[in-house]
Structure formats: C-alpha cells, structure tokens
C-alpha cells in the first residue's frame, strides 16, 4: 500500500525553517505591496521597516525562550508526581487571564533598577532590563509562555504510556525516552502551542508598552507603532502587514504540524 505523505514532511529541518521565514517575509512583502497600491506612492518603507524588524527581533527569541521553558516545565508537570502540580500550572498560566497592564506592572517591579527586586536582578544580570529590547523580549516571553506550557503538558500527557514503557524495556534511559519517544509523539500539540505563543509574542502590547516604553527606533514594535500612527496613511500598511503576516505564518506552521497520513 502506498502511503500518502504530507509534502511538508518530506522537507529537512533547515528547509522547514526556510518555509516559515519565506512565509513571514511573503506576508510582509504582500502587505507592503498591497498597501503601496492602495496608498499611492507614499514611501512606507522607512516608517514600517523599523517596527517590523524590531517585532521579529523581539518575537522570535521570545518564542524560542517560551518554547524551551514551556516544553521543559510542561514535561515536568506531565510526568512529575508531586503535590501542587496544578497550582504551579495555574501560576504559570496567569499571563493568559491577567490584564497585560497588571503583567507589565509586576514586570516593572521585578526588573526596574529602582525597586529592591529589580535592583538585585539588574546587578546580577549586569545591565538594565527596562526601556530596551531585552525588556520587550521578557514581556513577550512571559506572554507566550503559558500557551507553550499548557499545550506541551496536555500533549505530553496524551502520549500512550505503553509506548514509553516499551522504550524503557528497550534499555533507553529516561532522558532518551523523552527525546526519542515522548516529545516526537507530542509534537503536534507542542507545535500548536508554539504557534499560538508566537502569535501572542508578535502582538504583545500592554506589558511591552509599560516595560519597553514605546521609544521610537528602540522599543516601538509594530503593535505599538500602529497606535502611534493611527491617523496617518502608514497605519494601513502596518495593519495589512500584521494581518497577512499572521495568515502566511499560521499557514506555514500549520503545514509543518501535519503528521504522516
């Protein structure tokens, strides 16, 4: 019997990354071109490119950090047998339900050099963590983390424990069972969590405004720039870029999340 294989699965790891990059850039290019057509010959590039590139510079590392932390803590919560597991997940999920301004307030308390905790953290890290890109990345990471955590925990718990038991009878130590069996089998759920986390990081607004400060050319991401340019024609380009970038990125990631059929 001939198997049907999703085209995306025949790609190598680097090619998959290339698909996502091309999808994001295609969205950007498409949005820019469409906005250009409708907006006439206004030179959007200088206005739009800065916030766009900054958004990528913030969202990509934030997704990576939130993904690693979410998968690791999701694995511990799924496999660990200790009291308070659900409480930990609830605490980790707070950024989903709390208003972004509350998250921003607590992050300012934790990161500002003027506060006791923030002063200590700043001394330990060696440089300031507010009103710069690092602060924006922290905000987006905190916003994306709960989605990665919850999706990772649910999908890891959904892996058939008999397959993991079989792997142990094959002599594989626990860490190899996790890497060779559990995480690959949970990949669809993990990919879904990363997708939503990435989307959340791309669109982070409230906490980024408070911690980053909306400094033009330094911490003004696309979401912040849209509000700042709301009465100018550039907003159309920015809105279109965000919408089309979202569609193409989600399509690209959705393709990669498909399993063999």
């Amino acid at each position, binding site marked *: *019997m001939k*198997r049907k294989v999703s085209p995306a699965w025949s790609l190598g790891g680097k090619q998959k990354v290339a698909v996502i990059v091309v999808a994001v850039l295609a969205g950007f290019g498409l949005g820019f071109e469409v906005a250009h057509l409708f907006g006439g010959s206004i030179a959007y590039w200088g206005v739009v490119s800065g916030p766009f590139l900054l958004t990528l510079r913030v969202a990509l590392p934030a997704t990576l950090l939130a993904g690693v932390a979410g998968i690791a803590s999701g694995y511990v919560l799924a496999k660990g047998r200790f009291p308070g597991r659900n409480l930990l997940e609830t605490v980790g999920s707070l950024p989903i339900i709390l208003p972004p301004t509350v998250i921003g307030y607590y992050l300012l308390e934790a990161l500002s050099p003027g506060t006791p905790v923030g002063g200590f953290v700043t001394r330990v890290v060696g440089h300031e963590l507010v009103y710069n890109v690092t602060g924006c990345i922290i905000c987006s990471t905190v916003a994306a983390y709960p989605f990665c955590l919850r999706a990772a925990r649910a999908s890891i718990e959904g892996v058939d424990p*008999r*397959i993991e*038991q*079989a*792997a*142990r*009878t*094959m*002599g*594989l*130590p*626990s860490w190899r069972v996790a890497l*060779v*069996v559990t995480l*690959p*089998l949970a990949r669809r759920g993990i990919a879904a969590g990363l997708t939503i986390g990435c989307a959340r990081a791309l669109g982070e607004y409230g906490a980024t405004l408070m911690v980053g400060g909306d400094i033009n050319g330094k911490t003004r991401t696309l979401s912040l720039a849209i509000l700042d340019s709301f009465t100018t024609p550039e907003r159309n380009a920015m809105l279109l870029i965000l919408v089309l970038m979202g569609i193409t990125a989600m399509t690209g990631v959705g393709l990669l999340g498909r399993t*063999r059929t």
Partner: protein
Amino acid sequence: MTAALEVAVARRIGEFDLDVAFTVESGIAVLFGPSGAGKSLTLSLIAGLIRPDTGTVLINGRTVTDCARRIHVSTQDRRIGMVFQDGVLLPHRSVLDNVALAVRQGGGRRERRAIARSWLERVGAEGLADRRPGSLSGGQRQRAALARGLAGEPALVLLDEPLSALDSAVRAELRQLIREVIVSSGVPAVLVTHDAEEAEEIGDEIIVYDDGRVVGRRSVERPTPPRTRGNAPPESGVSP
C-alpha cells in the same frame, strides 16, 4: 547453576490480590491461566514497570527487586526484552529504527543497524525494515516486536500474549517462529497466554495461574528436541 529467573512477589490492586512464587531455570516458561489471573501483572512486576508490595525478583542471579532492602532496579537497567500484545512499536520510527534502538551492544549507529537487520532477517521481516509500524499487518508487527525484544541480547525475554490479537493462521505460523528464534538464541523467556494449544506448542514448562496464585506446574513433553543453533540451552535444563 544460577536460575534465569526467581520470582516471589505479592501485589494488591483494588480487590485483586496477587501472590506468586516460581523459578525458571532456562528455556521458555509459560504463565497459563484465565484472563484476570494476574499473569500480565506478574510480567510487569518482573519488568519493573510496577513495583510489588512485597517480595523479590532475581534475573540471572542478580537482584532487581527486593522490597525489604528497598532495591528496585529501573526497567531500562534490567536487561530484559519485552514483546507486547499488539507490538507497541514506536509509531513514528521505522521498523529498523525500532529494532536498532533496542540494540544495547556497543559500536556506532551503523553497527547497531546492521545487528538490527540481522535480527529482522532471523524473524523473516527483512523486507519491512523501512516500513512504519502503522502500515504493518498484525503478524508483521509481532515479527518486528520479536526482533526488537531479542536484539539487545537480553538476559530474559518477556512475551505478554504476543499472539492473542492475530487470526488463527498467522498465530500458528508465529508460534513456531517464536519457539525457534528464542530457543536458537538461547535466551530464557517467560510467555503469558490463556491459549492451551499455544502454551503446549511454545513452552518448555507451563506454570498454571488462577486468581492471583500459582496452582500447578508441569513440563512439556517433546518427542524430539527442537533444532538448535549457536548457544541454545539444553532442553533438560527445565526445572520440575
């Protein structure tokens, strides 16, 4: 001579109470009895997938479980091979990968894959190497699972109703294969079944279970010794 397996365990799960003790010197021992008698639970206790409430398990003279001394060697360090009822192959890896991952012998990836291929040949599954488990028939899956169970040179192979999900024609074919391959490899084995014909055809001795207890034990009479290759154990090594 050190026994291949010494089991004396008790475990209570809800209303069910398992309390068994037996020794397997060598060859293939069959745990035979009705469903719910505690046969598969015993295999899980031997494999270390479940801990007993009390008791000991020794594999080749090595204590892998001793509740009184708080010894519980993890499953991956017991040097066992296991064949499950429906194979339980890793669904996202090829058949060859499934077998190669179980190869414990040293050497690089190429060497482990070569060993895995030789085991697939021994069970008549060489043509399945690149297939995914999801595309295999039940019989093919169990052949691959048998190769995987033996590929790591285990001290003991555990087979948990490996044929119960197959139709009768495939079952008859695989009974013969299982016995031939295990005997020729010289690895002692414990097989669980509730099929009397299967127990007689595969086993060297039959340990009868009922309601969590061993209620009988007998050797299987074979008119002529089976063909053996390599370091096959003598048939007379079976304990009474």
